[in-house]
């Protein structure tokens, strides 16, 4: 045997692990959710709003809507803030300021979910409950969609900013310099050159942040109220899918069908996340390949 072939084989085998893992996660969850799918059709489960495990009713609609409300609120709050911050970092900030800002963002990205959740309970819950809700003429305990959206928005800002900065910085400097030389202001450079070239990439960065928001668990469940109702406003509580899993998984063995239902919840969540995450990632990979 040629020298080094053995190691090559071992490394090759290890590198198959991610493929096997990805497939087995999907398969195992599908197999474990199957008992419920053989009883009821997928659409009745997804779009029914009756969640009564004791009576064998597993309607996921309130939870799906809860997830969407919270995630979209976070997205609307985070996307503009992140894009503006990214533009500042890539096109305006001096080298020294960048050196300060990047670690700040890294730190923000590295803080654990539970810390954000606690911060939400300490500051955002009272803020929303005592000040924002009365301002809009409604009552809220503070444990509601808006609170969860704010906390989640702060959590996904670093993801969107980091990826956006990479995309924005990839715009060739000579293009910008040419525009500046023609007398364009920096705003015009950003508007007509930087954003024109990198808008899809920035959008992909936002979608990547969105996909992170879908699956965020602890921080959201700490502030969102966890009431399985169909949300009617930003100030009503909700019960997103990850929270449903976190609160009930592992303790459901006695009720028939419950386990399968929760595994189905995991699959629904998985698909919601993967579609967005993968689309964004594949586009960004393509972008990266082009600039190589």
């Amino acid at each position, binding site marked *: 045997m*040629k*020298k080094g072939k053995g190691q*090559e084989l071992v*490394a*090759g085998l290890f*590198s198959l*692990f*991610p*493929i096997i*893992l*990805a*497939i087995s*996660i999907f398969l*195992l*969850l599908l197999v*474990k959710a199957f008992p419920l799918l053989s009883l009821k059709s997928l659409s009745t489960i997804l779009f029914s709003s009756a969640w009564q495990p004791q009576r064998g009713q597993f309607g996921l609609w309130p939870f799906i809507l809860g997830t969407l409300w919270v995630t979209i609120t976070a997205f609307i709050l985070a996307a503009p803030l992140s894009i*503006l*911050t990214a533009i500042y970092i890539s096109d305006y*900030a001096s080298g020294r300021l960048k050196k300060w800002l990047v*670690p*700040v*963002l*890294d*730190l*923000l990205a*590295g*803080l*654990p*979910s*539970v*810390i954000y*959740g*606690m*911060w939400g309970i*300490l*500051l955002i819950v009272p803020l929303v409950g005592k000040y924002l809700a009365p301002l809009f003429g409604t009552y809220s305990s503070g444990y509601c969609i808006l609170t969860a959206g704010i906390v989640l928005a*702060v959590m996904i*800002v670093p993801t969107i900013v980091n990826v956006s900065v990479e995309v924005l910085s990839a715009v060739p400097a000579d293009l910008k310099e040419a525009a500046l030389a023609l007398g364009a*202001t*920096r*705003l015009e450079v*950003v508007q007509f050159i930087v954003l024109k070239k990198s808008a899809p990439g920035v959008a992909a960065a936002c979608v990547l942040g969105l996909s992170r928001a*879908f*699956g965020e*668990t*602890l921080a959201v469940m700490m502030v969102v109220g966890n009431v399985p109702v169909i949300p009617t406003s930003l100030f009503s509580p909700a019960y997103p899918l*990850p929270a449903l*899993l*976190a609160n009930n998984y*592992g303790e459901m063995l006695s009720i028939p069908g419950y386990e399968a239902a*929760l*595994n189905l919840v*995991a699959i629904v969540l*998985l698909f919601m*996340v*993967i579609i*967005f*995450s*993968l689309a964004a*990632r594949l586009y960004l990979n393509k972008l990266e390949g082009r600039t190589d």
Partner: protein
Amino acid sequence: MSSHQPGTDRRLKRRHQAEAGFKSILLASVILVVVILSIILVTILWKSLPALKLSMILQTPGTGYYLGQQGGILNAIIGSLEVSLGATFIALIIALPTVIFLNTYLKRRSFLAEVIRLSLDVLWGIPSIVYGVFGFLLMLMLHLRASLLAGMITIALVELPILSRALDETIRLVPPELKEASYALGANRWQTATRVVLHQALPGLITSVLIALGRGLGDGASVLFTAGYTDRITTSLFQPVATLPLAIFFQLNSPFPEVRERAFASAAILTLLILFISLLTRYFGRKLSRHKVR
């Protein structure tokens, strides 16, 4: 000259006003981000002060701890370190050969390389709560109970795509000339990968490992069903283990204000640990760029 065309002046002025306006909006959003981070850190540290005593990090929970009496969260500190160090080790064992194989044995656009990268991207997107569910199902299949081992494996799965991605990026930064020089000297691909590429990428490797470690330390959702919880210090792979995120989560749900204050103190301890790892990451990250071959 410009006085001949009064309109130009006005337009120029408007453009400059737009520029100034835009710049202040940008600056405002950056300041907002920085202020939010400071508020988070200050809130947590300030709230933690009343309960932040030495006993918090030196003792395990005593009897009546959850009613507000004596004790600390040494069990969770040690537990979190055990889980995340073990997990990072497992993740590294899988990620390192994978990334070496991807970068030295496979062509960039080969089918296998694309499939491996695609599955890493899929894994990167999977939320940690789903890893928790998968870990729990795996645990049942292997007849394991909620334990240090199960928690370690689950966190390792969470860390794997993060670590692989970071390693991949560092190893890709190694200049191809170095590899070519090594091949020219008669080294085979394995020797080149381990003695030249890894040596050059070592600071980046440490950075990647630290990033993964930080993730593992802070992840609560995936250990919720797999690691269990205990008031003792875990000494075996098959005992349940306490982790800091869950310690914070459980104590926050307590009706006793003393216990809630301890949740704040635990959060401060976790934040400081993450802060420390983040600083270490910075340190090695800087080294990475210092040794760049031009």
